[in-house]
């Protein structure tokens, strides 16, 4: 290993000299770790666990809806299933997996040895993990004194007055509130850490305009998290005061407003969508150029578009509330703001296309998922523009059309890009390649399943099928469509199992990756796979956006063209 100085070689051997550590020692090491890579991996592992749990909940719902008048689960169970599925996917899959990748990659990409606040980092992870456990503990503890209710059943946006003591006795809603409050604290902690790391720990020469776009996007995402999670935390505190101290924030009997909860929730809820989707853009920005063998097209435009999305996303929340009756001016404003946000998003899509254009495209599994992301994200954006028109939304709001639209974003765009990121960075994290053969099966099965489920799901929505119903009559004409939608879920489940198998199998049997299997250009590929605890034996110095390109091609270095 070329980077090793005698000191670091001694450091590395200090651990391997003894015998294999005991199982308990390994656990102790992971529990007490403050290393950003380990915390990142724990975030990812914890998110994958909940992905399987919440995916299973989705599968149960699809079984229930596959045929009309089904009695596979009771209406009460169905309510709990969609509440838990939504809450879990957003807070305990989406957020932790994105923060996991961020935690792992950001210090490596900017040439730092750890995050700015390693102990805060560990705290944020464990408090978020505790929140997730608390949510699922409600299955046991939610009964309360009233002996009714188990898991929360108020929907993932928990509209008032459903959450009031009268309508939600027992403790299930309290578990929901507390777990969101705790993960919110964890999220703010990690976001704070990412901002401080990005601003304060860049290696020499890593100016802001040389940072990898992934780091830029995580910076904007984290700033967005501050302004989005704050309102959620405030709303949860208010809800707890209502439920425990007898306050009247959302108590309509005492003059309180149920619509106020909607506003507070969606002031969090819509930026949250961008907090989830921006990291997917971040992965695309790193992966698409490497597999097109071209530098990213329009770096400054990408940064500007990201910042633009960050700002505009703060003023679109009430497009979730067109059916409330906010009045013509508010509807016009939020329709307009929602349409405007498609401009920076469009800029990004064009830049990715321009990066692909004329490139020597390598269709690895990672790249296949990235291309799938491009198409599906475009379609998701188009149905988004349709729904942003208030009168259109009056017709289709709270129907399966909306469910199809946001799953197109969450699955078609975010999950596809996450899979892509797994295939791309797994070699760095473990030192082994994921199997490309299994990966291709995974890709095609998932693609077929995804389109079967979510393309067809738009149609029952247009035919009038509302969301969150636990069953329907046979004469509505939705039966065949629902059966097909459910069969798509089976494809996706099989593909996901293949993926998990690939993760486990490749960890032991995968091909050795080496430090730079993709011939990439950012700093994380300059260290070993997996990187040593200190990341870089010597802190690097960079002089362009693609430091490894400069190193491999000194005769045609990027730094010759940058100011």
């Amino acid at each position: 290993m070329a980077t090793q100085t005698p000191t670091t070689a001694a450091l590395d051997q200090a651990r391997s000299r003894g015998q294999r550590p005991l199982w308990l020692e390994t656990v102790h090491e992971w529990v007490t770790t403050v290393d950003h890579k380990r915390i990142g991996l724990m975030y990812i592992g914890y998110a994958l666990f909940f992905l399987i749990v919440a995916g299973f909940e989705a599968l149960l719902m699809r079984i229930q809806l596959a045929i009309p008048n089904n009695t596979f689960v009771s209406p009460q169970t169905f309510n709990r299933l969609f509440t838990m599925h939504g809450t879990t996917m957003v807070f305990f899959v989406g957020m932790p997996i994105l923060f996991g990748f961020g935690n792992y990659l950001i210090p490596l990409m900017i040439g730092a040895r750890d995050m700015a606040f390693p102990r805060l980092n560990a705290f944020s992870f464990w408090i978020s993990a505790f929140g997730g456990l608390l949510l699922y503990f409600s299955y046991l503890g939610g009964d309360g004194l009233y002996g009714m209710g188990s898991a929360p059943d108020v929907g993932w946006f928990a509209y008032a007055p459903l959450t009031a003591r009268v309508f939600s006795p027992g403790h299930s809603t309290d578990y929901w509130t507390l777990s969101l409050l705790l993960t919110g604290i964890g999220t703010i902690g990690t976001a704070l850490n990412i901002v401080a790391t990005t601003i304060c720990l860049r290696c020499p020469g890593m100016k802001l305009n040389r940072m990898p776009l992934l780091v830029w996007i995580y910076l904007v995402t984290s700033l967005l998290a501050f302004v989005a999670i704050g309102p959620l935390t405030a709303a949860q505190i208010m809800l707890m005061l209502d439920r425990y101290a007898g306050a009247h924030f959302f108590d309509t009997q005492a003059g309180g407003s149920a619509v106020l909860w909607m506003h507070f929730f969606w002031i969090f809820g819509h930026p949250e969508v961008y907090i989830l989707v921006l990291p997917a853009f971040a992965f695309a920005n790193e992966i698409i150029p490497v597999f097109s063998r071209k530098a990213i097209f329009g770096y400054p435009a990408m940064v500007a578009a990201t910042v633009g999305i960050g700002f505009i996303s703060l003023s679109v929340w009430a497009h979730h509330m067109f059916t409330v009756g906010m009045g013509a001016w508010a509807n016009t404003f939020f329709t307009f703001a929602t349409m405007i946000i498609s401009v920076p998003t469009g800029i990004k899509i064009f830049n990715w296309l321009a990066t692909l254009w004329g490139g020597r495209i390598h269709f690895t599994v990672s790249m296949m998922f990235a291309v799938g992301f491009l198409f599906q994200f475009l379609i998701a954006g188009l149905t988004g523009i349709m729904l942003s028109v208030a009168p259109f939304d009056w017709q289709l709001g709270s129907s399966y059309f909306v469910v199809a639209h946001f799953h197109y974003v969450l699955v078609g765009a975010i999950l596809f890009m996450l899979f892509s990121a797994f295939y791309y960075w797994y070699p760095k994290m473990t030192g082994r390649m994921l199997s490309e053969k299994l990966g291709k099966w995974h890709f095609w099965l998932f693609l077929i399943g995804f389109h079967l489920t979510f393309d067809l799901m738009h149609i029952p929505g247009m035919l009038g099928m509302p969301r969150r119903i636990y069953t329907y009559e046979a004469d509505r004409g939705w039966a065949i469509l629902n059966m097909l939608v459910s069969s798509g879920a089976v494809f996706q489940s099989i593909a996901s199992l293949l993926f998990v198998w690939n993760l486990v199998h490749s960890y032991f049997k995968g091909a050795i990756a080496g430090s730079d299997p993709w011939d990439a250009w950012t700093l994380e590929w300059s260290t070993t796979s997996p990187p040593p605890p200190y990341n870089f034996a010597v802190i690097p110095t960079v002089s362009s956006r693609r430091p490894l390109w400069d190193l491999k091609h000194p005769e045609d270095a990027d730094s010759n063209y940058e100011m």
Partner: protein
Amino acid sequence: MSTTAVMPHSPDESWTLPSRGIVGMVCLIVAESAIFIIFVVAYVFYLGKSLSGPTPGEVLHLPIFTSICLFSSSFTVHRAVTSLEHSRRSACTVWLALTVLLGGIFLCGTGIEWHELIYIDGLTIKTNLFGTTFYSLVGLHASHVLIGLIMLSLALLFSLRGKMNSRHGERLEVLSLYWHFVDAVWAVVFLVVYVFGK
């Protein structure tokens, strides 16, 4: 590419970045501001919408003395930081003690005000929307004052035992940033609740 690339490095190039403590605290302040804004919005939204009394105009009195105490504690904590930076350690201790005293007076003032509201005017968090929003907003701020006071008291304790020197200047500055934020929030709460909201 199986070998690890060697990245060039030039340690002599000057490369300074902002302090992580201050950046971290600014981030925390941004996140906290978002929480406070929501509580202020709730307060303003429910102004005059209570179905029963008492109303703010009937029971609230301007807390002028305690507010002056809190605002001047911003000045004293600032002096504590500058004293420490200039290695005047005993001056720093005095300024810190003053800050804790002023903050303590403010908190006692809030306690007395709440005692009067609850036992004389009969206003609790359950009474009406005014009680709900008033106690939660002022209470959220008071809890921030309390946390700030605990941290400042710790700093005072270290200072009294001679454990603080100019190397800790930046940490004290981070703490003072938080304290300035708490004061700034009070300026907003004071204006919204006691001046415009009455």
